[in-house]
């Protein structure tokens, strides 16, 4: 039952050589869920939070076990803020931050961070962009210097703009070699029509070509503001040191008017929609789903438990048990509720040999229906809750994970009680809640289905 790997990899990871221009690689390795158990253990964390004079939120957590520091900036702007005809703008802007500042060239930035064995990474996603420096304690001043430099003083050189844009265009072409990417793009088009989550974070061939250097500069000026930024510092540093470094390096960041945001709800899918994409492959890549929930939806915890039982719980989920362990139809199968600032999507994905495409889809739909029609068993509920509560500390067991989680807790406004209350919020979910949210948030009639593979042989009948 468990699966993993082959050589290399754990379960659902797909290593590719691309992603981030530089070195790359990848993989999602272990789906990082994690945890500990029925004692419902909360995490004993005491982060400190301050707001600077220019309006930046600063969160500090001291961790003195290893001489390393993670400085992680989250900017409240992502691809959801892209104009539809210029999808990819937030990502292109982010990708250019470390490609030259007023005082350092692209190469100088790379040389400085590489020389001390640290890393400097920028990544745009749908709701926000992160820029982070990971550095040894002895080099912490350099870490702040470089991070502040790329955030406060990017130069957006014309030649770098052209180069990075071509690079991203190339990656878009290359992404077509990954059936999972092809399926995801098609799926988002169906689920998020007329919504900012519709487009890939990196944009499309068409939209990227419309972006000008002025667009990038304007996006930066409008969105990259201290009041839009959550700076999380975790590691071998004291509150006093952190505060002083923040003042030195970010104190001069000019305030600005916060950008206006409008919340858009995706239109509910009102009928079944199927999209098939031809590729000469031995497996069909299948994605099936529809709209989901936002991170602040009060049902988030009930949905988390329900989804765990359905297909997020790895080897103990119903989908894994049915599709993989009983029928041998797939290596990996998972269900996801991508809870974002605005309601995200729900999907189940798997790969199965071409010949069993219809059988797998039928099996997936049966599990969705099953969860709506009958309550889960006492044992399933107890085990799901006990995993979710117990595994909580595993989500926080490294400096990098802590910085990421703290930043998101602040971004979504969950409050630091999240760390002590999470087990309670999971504990109070009942069997009735699970069935209620299954009925409310799963729909086996109105869904989007995407199949990428050898269509002539797959003969999709759904």
């Amino acid at each position, binding site marked *: *039952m468990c*699966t*993993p*790997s082959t*050589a*290399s*990899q*754990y379960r659902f990871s*797909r290593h590719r*050589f691309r992603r981030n221009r530089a*070195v*790359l690689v*990848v*993989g999602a390795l272990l789906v990082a869920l994690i*945890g*500990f158990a*029925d004692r419902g253990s909360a995490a004993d964390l005491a982060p400190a939070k301050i707001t600077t004079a220019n309006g930046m939120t600063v969160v500090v957590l001291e*961790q003195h*076990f*290893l*001489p390393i520091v993670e400085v992680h900036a989250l900017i409240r702007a992502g691809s959801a803020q892209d104009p539809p005809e210029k999808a990819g703008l937030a990502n292109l802007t982010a990708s250019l931050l470390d490609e030259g500042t007023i005082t350092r060239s692209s*190469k100088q930035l790379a040389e400085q961070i*590489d*020389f001390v*064995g640290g*890393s400097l990474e920028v990544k745009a996603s749908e709701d926000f962009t992160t820029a982070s420096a*990971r550095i*040894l304690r002895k080099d912490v001043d350099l870490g702040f210097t470089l991070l502040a430099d790329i955030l406060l003083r990017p130069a957006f050189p014309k030649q770098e703009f052209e180069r990075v844009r071509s*690079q991203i265009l*190339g*990656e878009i072409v*290359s992404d*077509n*070699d*990954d059936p999972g990417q092809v399926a995801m793009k098609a799926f988002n088009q169906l689920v998020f029509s007329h919504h900012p989550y519709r487009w890939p974070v990196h944009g499309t061939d068409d939209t990227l070509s419309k972006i000008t250097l002025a667009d990038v500069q304007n996006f930066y000026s409008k969105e990259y503001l201290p009041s839009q930024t959550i700076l999380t510092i975790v590691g071998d540093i004291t509150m006093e040191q952190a505060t002083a470094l923040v003042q030195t390096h970010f104190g001069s960041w000019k305030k600005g008017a916060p950008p206006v945001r409008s919340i858009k709800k995706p239109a509910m899918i009102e009928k*079944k929609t*199927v*999209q*098939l994409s*031809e590729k*000469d492959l*031995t*497996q069909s890549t299948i994605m099936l789903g529809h709209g989901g929930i936002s991170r602040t939806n009060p049902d988030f915890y009930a949905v988390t438990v329900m989804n765990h039982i359905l297909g997020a719980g790895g*080897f103990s989920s119903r989908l894994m048990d049915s599709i993989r362990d009983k029928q*041998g*139809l*797939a*290596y990996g199968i998972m269900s996801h509720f991508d809870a974002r600032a605005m309601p995200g999507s729900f999907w189940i994905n798997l*790969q*199965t040999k071409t010949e069993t495409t219809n059988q797998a889809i039928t099996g997936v739909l049966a599990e969705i229906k099953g969860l709506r029609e009958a309550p889960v068993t006492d044992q399933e509920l*107890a*085990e799901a809750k006990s*995993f979710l509560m*117990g*595994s909580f*500390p*595993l989500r926080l*067991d490294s*400096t*990098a994970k802590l910085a990421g989680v703290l930043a998101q807790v602040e971004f979504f406004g969950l409050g630091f009680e999240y760390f002590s209350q999470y087990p309670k919020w999971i504990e109070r979910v009942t069997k009735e809640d699970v069935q209620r949210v299954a009925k409310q948030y799963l729909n086996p009639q109105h869904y989007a289905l995407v199949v990428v593979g050898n269509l002539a042989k797959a003969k999709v009948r759904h």
Partner: protein
Amino acid sequence: MNWPAIYRFSPTCFLVSLLLLHTGPAAAVEPSEFVLSNGMKVLLVEVPKAPVATVQVWYKVGSRNEVMGRAGLSHMLEHMMFKGTAKYPKGTFSRLIRKNGGIDNAFTGQDFTAYFENLAADRVELALELEADRMQGLALDPNEFQTEREVVKEERRLRNEDDPQGALVETLYAQAFLSHPYHWPVIGWFTDLDAMTLEDLQRHYDTFYSPNNATLIVVGDIKAEALFPTIKNLFEPIPKGPSPKHATTAEPEQRGERRFLLKREAQVPFVMMGFRVPNYSSDDSYALNLLEAILSHGKSSRLYQSLVYDQKISLAVGAEYSLMQTDPGLFYFYSLVSPDAKVENVEDALQREITRLQSEPPSETELQRAKNQVEASRVFEQDSNFRHAMLLGESESIGAGWRRVDQFLERTQAITAKDIQRVAKQYLTQDNRTVGILVPTPSRQPEFPPAAHQGKP
């Protein structure tokens, strides 16, 4: 795609750090080492920073211990290890771990098979109990095997058949190694998977799954003194097994370049260039490891600056070398070719970087940068209990031993720019290389019109 070992394509810092234990600013906590009377080695590391731990059992068996016609047997057995024993029937293992808030999984490489549980530190005993139980008495059921074989075949389709890069890596190893078992992929060939029998699995299990062929590692919020008696009680009753033979076929010297094409539907070409090089047992491995860093760690590295930044002919480029292998492996270069670039130009550019290293030593700054990266990554690696334990498990499983790895940093610091030049000249030669090129062929059918069809509401 089935890389010969996990790390191969993981983020670079991870890779590098596999090698070094102990270093600089934060020396790692030294493991407490014990050897049970049945020969099992136990390494315990106390890391009190979070109330969690990782338990890992590493067996010295991987695809290098397989024979022609049964490629993939070690990995198949890894899958079957989750099918239950008399005491803990099918499904119980993972259910118990999850119920207790843990995650469990396993992975197989060319040189090892490893099982792990990441969980709360106060649940470590449960993981130990379950691992001790399945070290013997695995229930190998024919029906479970039939189903699991299909799962593994799906895994092969996913990683090797339908992934252009995975397909190229598989072929590269098959070309570079003719007689050594590194020739075949860890996941195996379809026909071998179909030919495998329950008896094959049983024999493999009986031969290699014994305490004297295993290393147990626990890293986390534990007390070694307190935990060891528990470990002794659980594992010492397991009888010592046979001493498996670890001799494998030697790979003869390569005499002349090997070159192959792989044609399949794809959007962009992919180039790989592999050179046979020594492993950890050679002093040259330290210089080769730094050579890898100079070529490909970070955006200031030579390959990125040349192929991605200046010439814009690669979407991604890199060099990979793992000295942590039981037998000598490959040092290889890869490049994902930009859509408008020519494969020949990419190959020439890679060769130019090799020639440059052979004709002049790297600058002192570059050398120092590489050393700093290697040293820092060792510290960052300890941020994760899991990776920390993997480093120990891997070094033990390939025969180096964690103590030897310990000297690694010191040896690395002593490497000179001339050493780098020397190993580049000695190993990165044309006669010693295998070049593989993925040649994209057009889609057989035109892309389906995006016209979605709609079912009934």
